[in-house]
Structure formats: C-alpha cells, structure tokens
C-alpha cells in the first residue's frame, strides 16, 4: 500500500516537472540548460534538475541494472561450488536481505537430468545451501532464507544436451512479496 502511494507521488512529481518545463519554454528560456551542470546557469532563468533522473528511486530489487536483478545462479556439472562470476550477485542479495529484514526468499536448487533422481535432490540441496551460506555470511537472517531442492524435477530446458543441461544446473532466488 505504502509502496503504491510512493509510486503515485513519484509519477505525479514527474508530471509536474514536465509542466514546469513547458512553462519555461514559453518564457523563452534556454531548454538546453535544464538539468545540466550548474556552471552553465544563466542569470536570465533559474534552472532546476529533475529529481530522480538518471538514478533509480524504486525498490532496488526492481532495478534492472542492479546485480539484484540476477535471480538465477548457474553451476558446473555435479558441483555445488559458486563460480566467481556469481559471487557479486549473491553478495548483493545478502546485503539487501540484511538491510530488509522483513523480506524473505526461497532458494530452489536444481540439477540436470543425468544420474539418479534422489542423488540429484541431494545435489540441488547442496547448491541451494552454498548460496544460503553466502547470504547468511552477508548478514541475512536464517529465517529469511528457505531452501527447497527439486533436483532434476523442474528443468527449464527440456533438451538432452549440454546446452539444456547448463541451463538446468541452477539455484533460483525467489523473493516472497
């Protein structure tokens, strides 16, 4: 509810800003100056920067440019080790959870289809647990992070080849909102 209200205020201020720009234009002021470096300000008009432009003011979870936008961690065959390329992503999620103690997530662990199903439940669990341990290390609380291993039962790619397998060896970070 609060979030929706904030969003409404945000949009409203954006519309207002747009109106004021139009107003300036009729005054014959230089449009190029708007929002630019303050050193370029002329005496004939006062320019103001549009608040929020260029930075993201919503929930960082919704920012497509944030490492938090990455919600799937991929793994090597029969491994539950987190590869360096995903460390930054997991650190970001861990920090976010530490800062938002009311938020909780489910980590679902998955494997490719090779080998036995129950062993793969074990492997999916270990993958999810590796991610969980890193999140807790960043300050996330135990109660914020639930783990479910689906093993090979929920593939995202159905092929019987390495390109499918590599997409299926994963942990998904699912935020509960």
């Amino acid at each position, binding site marked *: 509810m609060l979030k929706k209200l904030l969003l409404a205020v945000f949009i409203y201020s954006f519309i207002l800003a747009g109106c004021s720009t139009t107003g300036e234009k009729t005054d014959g002021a230089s449009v190029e100056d708007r929002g630019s470096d303050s050193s370029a300000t002329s005496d004939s008009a006062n320019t103001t920067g549009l608040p929020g432009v260029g930075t993201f003011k919503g929930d960082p979870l919704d920012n497509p440019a944030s490492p938090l936008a990455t919600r799937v961690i991929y793994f090597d065959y*029969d491994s539950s080790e987190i590869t360096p390329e995903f460390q930054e992503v997991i650190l970001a999620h861990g920090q976010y959870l530490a800062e938002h103690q009311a938020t909780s997530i489910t980590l679902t662990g998955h494997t490719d289809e090779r080998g036995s*199903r*129950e*062993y793969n439940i*074990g492997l999916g669990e270990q993958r999810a647990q590796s991610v969980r341990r890193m999140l807790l290390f960043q300050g996330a609380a135990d109660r914020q992070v639930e*783990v479910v291993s689906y093993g090979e039962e929920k593939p995202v790619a159905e092929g019987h080849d390495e390109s499918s397998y590599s997409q299926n060896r994963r942990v998904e970070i699912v935020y509960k909102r």
Partner: protein
Amino acid sequence: MGKPMLKKLSFLFVILFSPHVWAVLDIEITGGAVGEHPIAIVPFSWEVKTRGLATDVSGILSSDLSRTGKFALADESKFQERPHHGDEVDFEKWRSLGVESLVVGRVRPGSNGNYQIQFQLFDVYKRPEASDGGPAEPEYKLKQVIGYSLPSSAQDLRRTAHYMSDLIYEALTGEKGIFTTRIAYVTVKSQAKKKSYELQIADMDGHNPFTVLKSHEPIMSPSWSPDARQLAYVTFENKKSQIYVQQVDTGKRTLVSTIRGVNSAPSWSPDGKQLALTLSRDGNLELYTMKLSTRKLRRLTRNSAIDTEAVWAPDGKSIAFVSDRSGRPQIYRVSANGGRAERITFLGNYNSRPAFSPDGKKITMVHGNPEGYHIAILDIESGVMDILTDGQLDESPSFAPNGSTILYATASGKRGILSAVSSDGKVKQRLVLQQGDVREPSWAPYRK
C-alpha cells in the same frame, strides 16, 4: 536356435469390460536369446457368448512366458491339431514338432454369468511309470503336469490368465512366477505449460493402470511396503518435499515426514515397521530410520557429503546407500543400527540408486560412464559388476520379486519409457505408454 537375435515382437491386447482402462501399453521384446524350453500353447476355445471381443487368454499366456526369455514358443501355423482338452491330444504330433511342453484349455460358462477356465499342462515326453496291473489310465493323465479349472469374472480374465502363467512357470522352472504382481511408476504430462504428475499402479505388463495420486507438483520415489499394501512416496504438492505413506486399497494416506529441508528417498524395512529416509534437518543430507509407530528418528550417517537413497537388505541387518564422500557418488553399506559404512562399488565414478535382489546377494544400480547412465548389477560377495543396458539415461532399477527381471526407466527419443532386462542381461523389453513420460518404476513385492 539359441543364437542371440534382435527380435521385434509386438503384442497388443485389447481389454474390454474395464471402464477405467485408457492406456494400452505396447510391449516389445527388443533383444535377447530365444529361450531353450520348447513349448506349444494351443489357442483356447471360447465356449461362451460374449458381448464384443473375447479376452485372448492363451495369448496372454504366450506373451507372459515368451517375455521371460526361458521358453521357445512353437509356431502356431505348424500345429497339426488344435486340442482343447487332454483327451483330444495326439502326443506324437507334438513330439514331431520338437515340443517338450504343451498347454491346452478352454473358456466355458461358469456360475452367475462368470467364466470357468480349464487348462492343462503336459510333459510331452513323460513316460508312464511301470504298470502296477491296475486298469490303464489314459495317456494324457500320465503326461499331465498340472491341470486347473479356475473361475473368473469377465473383468478378472486378464488377471486370471496371469495367474495361470504363474502356475505354468512355477511348474516348469521351479521358480515362483511374477505375472500377477504389480508395478508403481510416475507419469508426467504437459498440458498448456502446466505439468500433471500421476502416481500409477498397473499390472506388471503395464495393463490396467490406475492413478492413486495426481498433482501439479513433482511426485517422486514410490516405495512399496514389504506386503505390497502400502506405498511411501515423496511429493512437492506443498511446495516442499514431504513423505507420505498411502494405503493402496483405500487410497488413505498419512503424512510421515515434513521436517524443514529435504524429506526424501523413503524405503521400507523388511518387517514393514520402519522407513529409512533422507533428511537435511541438520544442515546436510543424512540418512535416518523412522519407527512408523512412534515416528521416532534415528540418525545413521554423519558426514558432510550427500548421503541418500538408502535401501534395506532383505535380511534387515544392513542398509545400502549412496554417498559422494569419496568425491563421487558410490554405494556404501552400513549396519541398520548405524556405525561405520563400508564402500562396496569401485568400478567407474558414478554409481547410485541401489536396489537389493530378493535373495540379498546382488545389488542393481545406475552406473555412469562416459557413454551414459546404464543399469548394472553387482554380485556383492565377489564384487563382480556387470553392465546390463546401454541406454543414455537409464535410471531407477528395481528387481521383480523373484529376482528374474529388473525394471527400469529409460529415455526413448524425448520421452521417458519403462524397460525391463533379465538379471542375466539376455532379454530386453520395453513398455511404451501411449502418451507422456513414464519414470521411477518400482516393482511390488508379492502381496501378503
């Protein structure tokens, strides 16, 4: 004869009278040697008025017996006579065909609209005992091995035919038959992005499938109780793994394990009083045993590796399981009371999903090598391991209750199907469901 040949035999049976039957399975013998015991099965006479098609009782016998790989069925087109009772048999005609055993029979009207199936099994070469001077018995009576008259409802004809196969098989081999046993397995169908999982129970030849559980979330690891009256399984219907025990006859079920984390890989103790299972409640996958009457848990393993897929040895004294404590999954064995585990597989670097043979002397498993994941069998005492199959993704092997055959799942094209291989690797067959995926078969023990 005896030369291994790739034989493609297809038996399609039409079942009537049974309204819930939907998926007729196509059974193909995909490879193997022709059996050594020559037998002739004369098509039974059908002496009843029926609506629609008759159940091919003798056809079911032929299919059951030929699939064991132990029999060579005589070619029907060469039969010189078609007797339906012993007193009509000219044994010389069958000897000239090289037949050792002969089955004749007929389906007659029984009481209350039921059927009465009469059949006789003969040893064509059996010589009469020295005469004691009494009146001479007819030749067929001397040569009869077994003879039965069995009542059957129309609905039960298939099952009655399988029971006859059991009687014939046991009389000829000395080993108990498996034709009236059942199998459980999981099917998966995709409908408009949503998946539908079903736990089904069917006859061992795939007929009469019956759905005992349906869910949009995965169902895994069905495990039969030793009396074949209950099934333990894993479901994700509540978005986490849980173990249920379900009564096969009533469909009633009980949630037995829903601890935080993994609740998986249930397996029954031979006395039916305990389950072995895998839990991650202590932060890592470990094996536990649970007394079903009290739900009391006892931890069996303490190891930072994956420990799972516990199965009880038939004598109840030990438990085999999978662990990657050596770096790669291998099979270990531990006393059912816990203690030190002993590694028992050393071939290759991927061995999982163990299942004991009914005599406890062998373990079948999934064996991974660079060519794929195959079904293998280990002789526990000698340590000799044989690889029985050559599929890419073979999985979930389980023994028939007489130990003769191993049922498993394999991939055929993009679909999962069931296959069976004889324990000596000689006979292979496939059970193809007409739609969807089939996986995780589990052969029921003899019903007690």
